[in-house]
């Protein structure tokens, strides 16, 4: 028995030995969720990074680069550990990915302390756009309050006067509600923030019915979405009250909704900084190539953000003449953001968050495939409200 243990030890150490390769490749470490049900988002993002890599021809600024993917298992301590591993063992030049605010909260300081440039491809934790901004911290997605603020404006535009708000009782859920309430001018006739283990909205839907609002706003991402929307229809509310959502109906779960025949979602509105049919050349190419890489599906915003993250990094490296180790030059290049994003051309604020438009999108059935389609701009060149708290 002891003999077997002694033999197994070097074997297991070998698994941990780094690949000693041509050390000149630029390395991008990517921490996303590839296990648990939330891997739906992570897998789309991985495909999008790969599409971006293909479009770049595997090179940034003329130098070859490679991507190293790690799974955070939806846990902040694991995300942090993988971040440390990417920095110390794989010696990456950039860190990106980071779907969740708590994973990012644990991991970003590590990367920033090590002098690496960090690009969040999703987590939009507000303090990082304000007081906690950092010269090496970039966000290629949005700040948490932006999208719901756009939704508030959309609700005003569509004449909603009495709103019922439904969300989840955790940080992001509360920030969504705060965002909507910031811009919505009508009356909030009811509000329910349900606990995260919650999957049955019978009580809340009964309250919605009693409150008789002329619009319902929801934030039910991931697996809460299918459960909630099913029950909304079962309660008969889809016939009487229009549904508005953020982050709940998108490219990642529309295939599921279509499969489960949730027809009542067709015609509902949501807001986002992008849609797959946004009319520019980069986006068209991205959407087409994404479908080829990923089961013929339309990309979600997670994928769009991932694509833009890699392109942003590439733009920085290009400006530095391929020298990824010259962090100052790369940073300046990233701040200029001289690249074609799937959103068109965007600028970044001094807090390194995008200043971008938000669009109204309608859920439609186009050529037998359910997708979200642009229906006008809700707000132009929106910057996070706490941007001036950033002392950069």
């Amino acid at each position, binding site marked *: 028995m002891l003999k077997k243990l002694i033999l197994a030890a070097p074997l297991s150490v070998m698994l941990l030995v780094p690949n000693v390769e041509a050390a000149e490749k630029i390395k991008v470490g990517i921490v996303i969720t590839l296990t*648990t049900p*939330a891997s739906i988002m992570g897998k789309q993002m991985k495909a999008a990074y790969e599409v971006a890599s293909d479009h770049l021809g595997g090179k940034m600024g003329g130098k070859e680069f490679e991507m190293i993917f790690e799974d955070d298992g939806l846990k902040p301590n694991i995300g942090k550990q993988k971040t440390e591993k990417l920095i110390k063992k794989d010696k990456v030049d950039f860190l990106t990915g980071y779907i969740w605010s708590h994973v990012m909260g644990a991991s970003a300081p590590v990367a920033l302390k090590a002098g690496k440039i960090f690009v969040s491809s999703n987590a939009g934790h507000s303090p990082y756009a304000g007081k906690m901004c950092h010269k090496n911290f970039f966000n290629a997605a949005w700040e948490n309050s932006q999208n719901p603020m756009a939704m508030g404006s959309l609700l005003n535009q569509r004449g909603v006067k009495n709103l019922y708000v439904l969300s989840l*009782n955790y940080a992001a859920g509360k920030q969504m509600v705060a965002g909507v309430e910031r811009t919505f001018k009508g009356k909030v006739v009811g509000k329910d923030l349900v606990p995260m283990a919650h*999957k049955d909205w019978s009580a*809340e839907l009964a*309250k919605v019915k009693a409150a008789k609002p002329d619009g319902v706003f929801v934030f039910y991402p991931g697996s809460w979405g299918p*459960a909630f929307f099913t029950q909304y*229809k079962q309660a*008969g509310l889809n016939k009487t009250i229009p549904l508005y959502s953020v982050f709940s109906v998108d490219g990642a779960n529309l*295939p599921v909704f279509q499969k489960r025949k949730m027809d009542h979602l067709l015609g509902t509105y949501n807001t986002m900084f992008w849609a797959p049919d946004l009319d520019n050349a980069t986006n068209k190419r991205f959407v087409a190539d994404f479908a080829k890489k990923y089961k013929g599906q339309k990309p979600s915003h997670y994928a769009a953000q991932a694509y833009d993250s890699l392109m942003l990094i590439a733009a920085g490296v290009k400006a530095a003449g391929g020298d990824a180790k010259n962090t100052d030059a790369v940073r300046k290049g990233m701040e200029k953001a001289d690249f074609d994003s799937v959103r068109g051309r965007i600028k970044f604020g001094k807090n390194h968050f995008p200043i971008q438009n938000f669009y109204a999108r309608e859920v439609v059935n186009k050529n037998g495939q359910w997708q979200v389609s642009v229906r006008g701009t809700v707000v132009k060149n929106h910057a996070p409200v706490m941007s001036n708290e950033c002392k950069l």
Partner: protein
Amino acid sequence: MNYILLAEQIFNGFQLGIILFLLAAGLTLVFGIMDLVNLAHGTLYMFGAFFAATFVELTGSLVLGMILALPAMLVAGILLEVIVLRTLYERDHLDQVLATFGLIIFFNELFLVVWGPEGSGINLPPYLSGLITLPGGITVPEYRMVIIVSGIVIALLLYFLVSKTRIGMLIRAGASNREMVGALGINIKLLFTLVFGLGAVLAGFAGMIITPITQAESGMGESILILAFVVIVIGGIGSIKGAFIAAMLTGLIDTMGRSFIDVALLPFMDAVSAETAGPAISSMLIYILMAIILAIKPSGLFPPKGA
């Protein structure tokens, strides 16, 4: 006071209670008779959900799919018992907790791999998708009424089984005094397998019947499992009657809490604080109730006699 809303919330509380009862009944039997702490009971709930979803998809019929899933649950339960759980009867509770914890980890991953991260769902046929209007303007979704009714039917069947049949007598005897039953020459092994199978079918049925509402996903068993344990502790381990009453109580308290606590807090604090405190308190209510019961009557509200 909106009486329609109150009435509808009471129905909702009943429906949650029914689901909890189905889970708790199996759990309390298994624990009471076999002295087995089965953390993987929630996994059986998940089995039912996914099996039913698959059968419904294959047959195209909700009813047929669910009917086929029931024997599948029985087989799965028996297999699990024979292969893994049987070895645990002799062990102490810690071993049972750990081994069944390992089962949870394994099966959550297996279902994720086989059915994919997006999970699965069951669509309701049109004849079950409507609303029932009761006198007074109270509306209840048809399907939820179906759940309540089937749950009551099963509760009655279980009651009949446990109090009026010979098997039921053995079950009650086993819950009160296991050694005696063995000493009287009853085939304990067979009894245990049957009881576990019954528990598995009940849990599986709860899982499949709730799926058209909440969908099937990996890990769906764990959060409701904790509630089920709370229910059997409150009701008294080994007692079906206790499980029923405790389940209904829990369902009502949880639903009422979620619906009305933030309003009830308004006289004591401002709206913003009530908004935050409300959900926090309502999620803790059930545990507070359990703590109180354990402090006052540690064996639960209706423990089986001789326990």
